[in-house]
């Protein structure tokens, strides 16, 4: 019991510290999800603490993830007017991103002859982390590995997105927002700030909508192809 309390407190304190650090220096590699996780993993390895011991405390923190995901309905509800403004473009764009992402991951990994369990783990990579991990669990993937892939998808968008828009001559804020939000979620859309407010708000709307749509489309895709 004491151990559990120590794990809970140290995780919360580390997170709050790294959250403050990221607010002061908002670089993507200082995101609290990276810094906090790396420090906790290093500590567990250093003190030879098994993950199952850590989760005796960690499970209480993780428990709040359920209602927190439910709470995502609030920002989506707030953006309902924006959805109606460009409903065909936004909805079809999100579907295009979803389907092209699922098929490209499936085809490439089949070519590499990778195990089905790894393919299932990689499929939800474009969704926002909490939802991606839960989708991964329901379709039989490995949730913590999915979280790593989600981060890679996010950083790919954040670091190379503007290059792609330049090469592809993409000038529309709506298209940039949809593609970044539905391919690279929260990490990617931080880069959209440089383009403007419209990019950013369409980006965060697309991120939320694509997470909800992905949570339904991913299991259907798995049902058909596996």
């Amino acid at each position: 019991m004491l151990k559990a309390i120590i794990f809970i407190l140290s995780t919360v304190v580390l997170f709050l510290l790294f959250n403050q650090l990221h607010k002061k220096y908002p670089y993507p590699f200082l995101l609290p999800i990276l810094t906090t996780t790396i420090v906790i993993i290093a500590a567990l390895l250093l003190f030879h603490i098994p993950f199952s011991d850590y989760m005796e405390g960690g499970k209480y923190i993780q428990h709040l993830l359920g209602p927190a995901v439910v709470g995502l309905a609030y920002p989506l509800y707030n953006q309902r007017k924006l959805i109606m403004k460009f409903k065909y473009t936004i909805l079809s764009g999100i579907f295009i991103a979803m389907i092209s992402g699922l098929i490209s991951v499936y085809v490439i990994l089949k070519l590499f002859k990778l195990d089905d369990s790894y393919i299932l783990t990689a499929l939800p990579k474009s969704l926002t982390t909490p939802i991606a991990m839960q989708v991964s669990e329901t379709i039989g993937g490995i949730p913590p590995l999915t979280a790593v892939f989600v981060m890679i998808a996010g950083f790919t968008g954040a670091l190379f997105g503007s290059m792609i828009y330049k090469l592809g001559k993409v000038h529309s804020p709506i298209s940039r927002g949809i593609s970044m939000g539905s391919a690279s979620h929260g990490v990617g859309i931080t880069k959209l700030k440089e383009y403007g407010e419209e990019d950013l708000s369409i980006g965060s709307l697309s991120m939320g909508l694509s997470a909800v749509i992905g949570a339904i489309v991913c299991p259907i895709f798995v049902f058909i192809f596996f």
Partner: protein
Amino acid sequence: MRIIRIIAQIAILYIFYYVGVFFVEITKLPLPASVIGLILLALCLQMKWVKVEYIREGAGFLLAFMTLFFIPPIVGIIDYPELLSLEGILLMVTIFISTLFVILFTSKLSEKIEQKELKLKEKKEGEERVVESNHLHP
């Protein structure tokens, strides 16, 4: 007072979450319970069955700390050292290529769709204007 309000509102969010859990339990569908709860809450807000004031502060509080809640499960990669094997690297390269492809493909296609939607809107507004002017001068 504010803290009590936040706790009560989190309890409301928990109710939606457990309705989602119950739904998944009885239908046996492979859907995440929390997303079912999300859709249900969005629906209730849209239909005005639940006032946005009943969840605003609770949702705001949980969303501000969202990252904290999924750090413990991510630490679980400690049990998957294969991430650093050849397979792990192939997986990461695939994610990278797929993401670049999706961004390019989606942004180009949605630019085309956007132009169509704008034209459609202009046409519609144009027609409405015609109808209005007909109404004014029959």
